[in-house]
């Protein structure tokens, strides 16, 4: 398993549109992905579950990828979040 910390910077946090964008990207990944915020873990492949994590602008989260292609997937997710998810 690989993991990396990142701070969410898009101003509305993981609201409907950015969450939709992220889950679309996550769905293309082969490994199991988890976003960890404090004690909460959510699966970003589901936009509903992802939004229920209530991740806001300025929150520090950990992205974990586990399984086939994990290195590549971690980079994909980190790049997506740091790019601001289309916002």
């Amino acid at each position: 398993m690989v993991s990396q910390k990142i701070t969410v910077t898009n101003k509305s946090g993981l609201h409907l549109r950015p969450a939709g964008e992220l889950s679309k990207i996550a769905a293309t990944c082969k490994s199991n992905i988890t976003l960890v915020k404090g004690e909460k873990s959510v699966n970003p492949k589901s936009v509903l579950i992802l939004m229920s994590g209530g991740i806001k602008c300025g929150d520090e989260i950990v992205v974990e990828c586990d399984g086939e292609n994990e290195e590549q997937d971690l980079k994909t997710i980190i790049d997506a979040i740091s790019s601001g998810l289309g916002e």
Partner: protein
Amino acid sequence: MWGGLMKTLSVDRIASKGIAMGNAYVLQKQDLSPENYEISANQIDSEIMKYDNAVKEAASQIEILAQKSDIFTAHLELVKDISLYGGVTNRIRNELQNAQVALDLTAAEFCAIFDSMEDEYMRERSADIKDIRNRLMRLLKGIGQTDLKSIQDKVILIAEDLAPSDTSSLNLDYILGFLTELGGVTSHVCIIARNLELPALVGVPDLLTSIHNDDFLILDAVTGKIIINPDDSTIHRYESLKQDYVNKRKELERSSFLPATTIDGRTVKICANVGNIEDVRKATTHHIDGIGLFRSEFLYMENSHFPTEEEQFTVYKEAASLCSSELIIRTLDIGGDKSLPYYKFETEENPFLGWRAIRISLELEDVFKAQLRAILRASAFGNVKIMYPMIISMEELNKANEILTACKCELEAEGLAFNPDIKVGIMIETPAAVLCAANFAKHVDFFSIGTNDLTQYVLAVDRGNKKISALYDSFHPAVVQSIKHIIDAAHAENIEVGMCGEFAGDEKATTLLLGLGLDEFSMAAGETANIKNIIRNSSYEKAKECAKRAAAAYTLQEVKKELSII
């Protein structure tokens, strides 16, 4: 054209005048509750397949919608969501629920999660989930979508009732008129119809059982008749009636450039009520003395978010420049029967007595400030005035004015132009404001009487309740005396009183209002020429006498007798 027996329905009150002929488009009321039956183990795969197909079809519907609005791009992700899909298919597979029940319960679980979240935005997303759920449910139950955007022919729209969210998705070029089974003459659909100068009748008994899709209709919103599948001679008769009606309107328009001055020299202002820039453009083609009511709530209702200061400024500025005379902008009047697609209002027992209008603005201060700043900035481009709705107390007025002052200071510090002496008025539409009118008159620049709510509140009669619609009558002595009291209180302090409720455009009330001393009549633009014509042919002295007697009457019947209505 001859689709069945000719049949006629009648109503007492006209919601919006005019005559239309065309085919009926019936907006079906839909039952979106799941059918409750169990499935057997060998039906699992076919039940999942049903759900798969519904998701596929929903996704392709949404893809088309997404080309027009960003909101639907996100819906596309929601409808294909793996946890929604997983939840539904697990229920089918493990609990042998049918697809409808499985969808209903899974969506309810997600709604519950979002409803309980701290973040307000997230709580509101439960509405998106419900939207998706309803779209899928319609497909599972084989019911068509109620997408009013799909209307592509000129039709008379028939519905049980029409909410603002329904009408905001209408392509109005295709609408010849409106008919609803519920609703009173002050309901939302009537306001829309009058602004668009389209005929409408509301509160029509047995409407939905009498009219079917594609029936040919004559909608006579002059005498209050609906003729279903008329015979040829009736159609011919109505073709000429319609022409007469149009000619009469044109004739009124021809003399409407003259001021609204009575034969004995009393001049009043005749203004228009509007809901958006389109309405302003349309209204300014009539000879009006200004916009007496700009309903800013439509800017909020026909949007996907609270409109920003810039967005509002653009609209108000354009309205101000279109309108050479005064422009009264009413601050957000939402709540009651008007909600916002992007803001979740708590369910209230009595929404009309609940969190609405100025009560919301004073609590959502950022939203209020964005609006006040936009109005102030527009005041640099015309004679813009501010009006607060639903005021019940001096405290509310003072608080609102404090926020206004703060906005002025901010704008000044930022070097943005505005009129520092902008006039501020209030709607008088609550019994509290009527009783304290003399106090308010000392602290505002003008009053505007909102007769729709005033009648409802003074009489304690819900204006949307069909069962008691006969009790809703603005000629009731209590309402007439309230109006007199308001006007007298205003004139004692030398401030102007307008009226922006439906009563102002009711030709039966013109003598009364003129005689009570009303300074400004604001109504749907289409009514202005008619009311102006009545005033130009009236004697102010006679109207005063008549109004005096009407205001002293004890019963509704006596009021109407004094005004020669009956």
